[in-house]
């Protein structure tokens, strides 16, 4: 996984008017059609194969309902299991990610603007980011208290690198003439950091943040597989241990849905914040 190659999705051009609307409708249909066909094919294949490890989607859906939903309206229809596991999981994941973003952006921007600091820290950073984060779970198990502290440490340490390296890259990319302009008008330090460096680095920072967010989800699950008292990862492990494969798959589906949701939200935020970019303006529709 490379932190720097994450690209912004490019939206294709479309024409205004009825033809455009019709085309959009067709393309939505096409997008929805493929997953539906896939699920039906899976259902047929699973029923025909009859393997306990690959339950048909309908069974998974039932397990999903029984495990995560069916609660009272006051709980947003979430079951007790969901409230006791999803919320702590998400709190750790988003909390760890937020800390990593703050640390990564501030450290990254500082490094990116200082050639000497980058020279010294560069090799160390390259090494640190090359360590597969899950490999550190046993280390953190020893270093930190079992449970939330160790889980947070795993998430933070694992996801800070893409943000940090992208921020450094972005901060370095301030054009020399833009730098000289700020110097000529004697722009004060605060205004320089928040008015020039940060906006210039923001496209890269967002790319890093998206990579980190999906990494955070992965590390959240992994860190909950050992020594956890709650969490989606724990439920997944428990279901597997009692051979309840329907519930196990229900947890997998939940994780996929959450990952997709977070990515979509972040993309929407990114589009708003980076609307100033040439070609990055909202062209209406979609």
């Amino acid at each position, binding site marked *: 996984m490379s932190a720097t190659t994450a690209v912004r999705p490019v939206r294709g051009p479309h024409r205004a008017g009825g033809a455009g609307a019709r085309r959009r409708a067709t393309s939505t249909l096409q997008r929805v059609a493929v997953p539906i066909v896939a699920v039906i094919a899976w259902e047929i294949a699973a029923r025909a194969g009859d393997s306990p490890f690959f339950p048909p989607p309908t069974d998974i859906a039932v397990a999903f309902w029984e495990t995560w939903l069916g609660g009272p309206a006051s709980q947003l229809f979430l079951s007790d299991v969901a409230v006791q596991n999803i919320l702590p999981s998400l709190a750790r994941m988003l909390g760890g990610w937020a800390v990593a973003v703050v640390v990564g952006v501030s450290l990254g921007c500082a490094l990116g603007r200082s050639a000497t600091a980058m020279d010294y820290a560069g090799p160390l950073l390259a090494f640190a980011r090359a360590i597969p984060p899950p490999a550190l779970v046993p280390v953190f198990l020893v270093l930190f208290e079992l449970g939330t502290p160790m889980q947070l440490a795993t998430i933070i340490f694992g996801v800070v690198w893409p943000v940090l390296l992208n921020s450094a890259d972005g901060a370095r990319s301030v054009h020399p*003439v833009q730098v*000289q*302009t700020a*110097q000529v008008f*004697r*722009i004060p330090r605060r205004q320089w950091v928040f008015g020039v460096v940060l906006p*210039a680095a*923001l496209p890269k920072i967002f790319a890093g943040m998206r990579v980190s967010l999906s990494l955070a989800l992965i590390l959240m699950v992994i860190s909950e597989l050992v020594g956890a008292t709650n969490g989606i990862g724990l439920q997944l492990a428990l279901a597997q241990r009692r051979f309840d494969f329907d519930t196990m798959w229900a947890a997998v589906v939940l994780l996929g849905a959450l990952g997709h949701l977070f990515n979509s939200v972040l993309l929407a935020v990114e589009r708003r914040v980076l609307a*100033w970019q040439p070609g990055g303006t909202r062209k209406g529709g979609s």
Partner: protein
Amino acid sequence: MTEPAGTMLAVSRLQHRFGSGPDAPTAIGDVSFEVRAGELVCIVGPSGCGKSTLLRTVAGLLSPTGGEVVLHGERVTGVSEDLAVVFQDYSRSLYPWLSVAGNVEFPLRTRLGKAERRARVAEALGMVGLGGQGGKRPWQLSGGMQQRVSIARALAYRPALMLMDEPFASLDAQTRADLEDLLLRVRAEHRTTILLVTHDIDESVYLSDRVLVLSKSPATVLKTLDVDLPVERDQVVTRGSAEFVRLRTEVAKLVHS
């Protein structure tokens, strides 16, 4: 070193090389000149002779490898207060995440109150013919319009010394003439000292109190010409006068020698 009264900028025996070592390129060979307060001096010279480098050194953005720049009686070691630069690479000097008005306002943010800032921005954009374009992004404008935004930013800042690097290069003839006259008006009104690089020989004579002709790279001063045209310049009358024609011919001969 004692200077004659009224000298704002004194450049003496300036030399600049990029990098070190025996084959480091020399951009400025040996340049000396003075600019008095309120003067408008134009610099002409062949492409690549070191004009932009000279302007950057005067601005304090580059430290010279030889000689010195003295501004307001003090040796320049960094960017001085009260100085604005219109960069040759105008599109790169505008911040794309700010609107046109935001760019003009940017240097004033911590210096002026909101109301005064807004008035200055509106006035400056109006002066360069971009009133009503303040809400756009720089990249939504044409090259010539972007160039005027960066001029407006310098005007709104009201510096004592304005350094302009080919500020009208991307403009059509009419807009160019308008902005030349605007510059002369602003100078008369605010007593701004202006050092302006141009490759347009007629323009250099039309605008200047003095024209500095530089040699091919590495730059040296070939000649300094005093422009003895009436202070009030007129696009038609001044450009048609015999003295104007004589001066422009002399500059042209020097540039092409």
